[in-house]
């Protein structure tokens, strides 16, 4: 399961998507994510899916890799589906089981909610897989800058974000190591009742937490030694440039969204 987490794993490249201004990508991804909740027909979802598939092709993300990243989400998709099945009461009953009534509306809504969830995750993945953490941090910093007036240090928010992403692989590696070290001492994580399992998880969490605290401490010191003092007086090396490419992307996305809404899909 840990191996399947690809959120935050940037796939380097220089495709059209990679070269977009991260701000453009961030805003358009947000718009696309909202659009998912507007779509309400089978054709609409099919078109939406086709569009994201086209984006993946443009970004040269291998479909198998993307599929693997979606794998952990399937579980939540199924839960969402079942949830809708049980709780949607409108429509014609297609199945009566004791106190449960499954309606045709419920089945359709179940599929739709499931699609929405998976498509939103797909959009987010496409964004993170084609946007390096530095670009992400820079985009967040720039987009949040207006909030400086109300006391939000947008630079620190961006730094925390990129720092978190920088340390994801390091911490996953550490977690894997501690887990294996405890397995070597005889822990079988898949066995036991809830309390025993909780106890076993402590054997990973406590050492991991101690490790993170030590790392954070050392990292803070190293940053200070490198003259870090917050965003004050700092230059930003990354020059975000919005070009023709960004206008094309925005125009295509917006036109496509308007089309979906206008056609009532």
């Amino acid at each position, binding site marked *: 399961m840990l191996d399947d987490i690809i959120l935050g794993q940037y796939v380097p490249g220089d495709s059209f998507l990679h070269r977009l201004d991260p701000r453009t990508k961030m805003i358009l991804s947000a718009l696309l994510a909202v659009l998912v909740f507007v779509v309400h027909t089978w054709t609409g979802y099919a078109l939406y899916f086709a569009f994201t598939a086209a984006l993946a092709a443009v970004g040269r993300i*291998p479909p198998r*890799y993307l599929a693997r990243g979606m794998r952990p989400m399937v579980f939540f998709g199924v839960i969402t589906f079942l949830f809708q099945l049980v709780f949607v009461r409108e429509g014609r009953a297609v199945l009566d089981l004791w106190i449960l009534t499954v309606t045709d509306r419920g089945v359709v809504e179940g599929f739709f909610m499931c699609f929405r969830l998976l498509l939103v995750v797909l959009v987010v993945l496409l964004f993170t897989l084609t946007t390096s953490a530095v670009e992400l941090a820079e985009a967040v910093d720039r987009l949040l800058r207006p909030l400086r007036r109300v006391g939000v240090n947008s630079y620190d928010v961006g730094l925390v974000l990129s720092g978190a992403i920088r340390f994801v692989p390091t911490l996953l590696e550490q977690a894997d190591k501690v887990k294996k070290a405890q397995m070597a001492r*005889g822990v079988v994580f898949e066995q036991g009742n809830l309390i025993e399992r909780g106890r076993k998880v402590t054997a990973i969490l406590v050492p991991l937490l101690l490790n993170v605290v030590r790392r954070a401490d050392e990292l803070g010191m190293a940053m200070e030694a490198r003259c870090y003092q917050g965003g004050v007086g700092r230059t930003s090396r990354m020059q975000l440039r919005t070009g023709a490419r960004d206008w094309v992307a925005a125009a295509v996305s917006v036109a496509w969204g308007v089309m979906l809404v206008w056609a009532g899909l």
Partner: protein
Amino acid sequence: MPISVRGLIHTYDPDTPFARQVLFGVDLEVGDGEIVGIAGPSRSGKSTLAQYLGGLLRPRQPGMVVIDGIDTGAPDADIAAVRTRVGMVFQFPEDQLFERTVELDVGYAPRLMKMNPADVEARVREALETVGMPFEEFRGRPVHALSGGQKRRVAVAGVLAKGCRTLVLDEPTAGLDPLGREEMLELVASLHRQGLTIVMISNQLEELARMVERLVVLAEGRVAADGPVRRVVSDAALLASTGLRPPGTVAAMQAFAAAGLPVRTDCLTVDEVCDEVARAAGGVRRA
């Protein structure tokens, strides 16, 4: 035969853009009561191999790992039994400590094995004494108050407490100061004297030359050499091709040889070096 490895292959992150193969068909046999060193430059696949030897990774691709007669790749293998017989000490094993006191932490494995409290205590006592930490003195000590070298020995005791007869150690001296390093090497040697089968992984030929009789060199996921330690560490061509640095004594002899002194280069101690150089220098003079 405690450990037998045949044609072992391993790939990290298969089916992703980051797929990376690290083992390309490794064969290795470790006999009962043997002490074997595994050396290799960083990324040679030695830590991955170590995890197979400790029963923590199980072969899925072609290749076979048999530990104490159990084929760990078989779907129905009793992997818990394997992990009881082989102890694996990871790099920086102090990272695994999580209980408040030394006694509680070392007793973790025996408690998991559902031993009764008296037996747990006996195991903990034995394991702590084995790593040179008197039980009565250290049982109640808080783990965080120990020195780096002590923490590491507690971690080794925590693995020994399972009652394993084979120990796989991955870079046991990494990051220790000279004192801690000497203590750790002495501990490994004494475990071997007590009859444990030892596989010691290290990138320091210097250390291995002192500790083991047989040395396996891993390079780019393959076994590049497997033989008596004296022969392997003085094989200049082999070390050059793998990027390993010879022990200082061997490097010194190579310098004397390069300067034209007729010496053998496989010296492992300062005394051997001095005797050999004195002999050759005297010989040249007489001639």
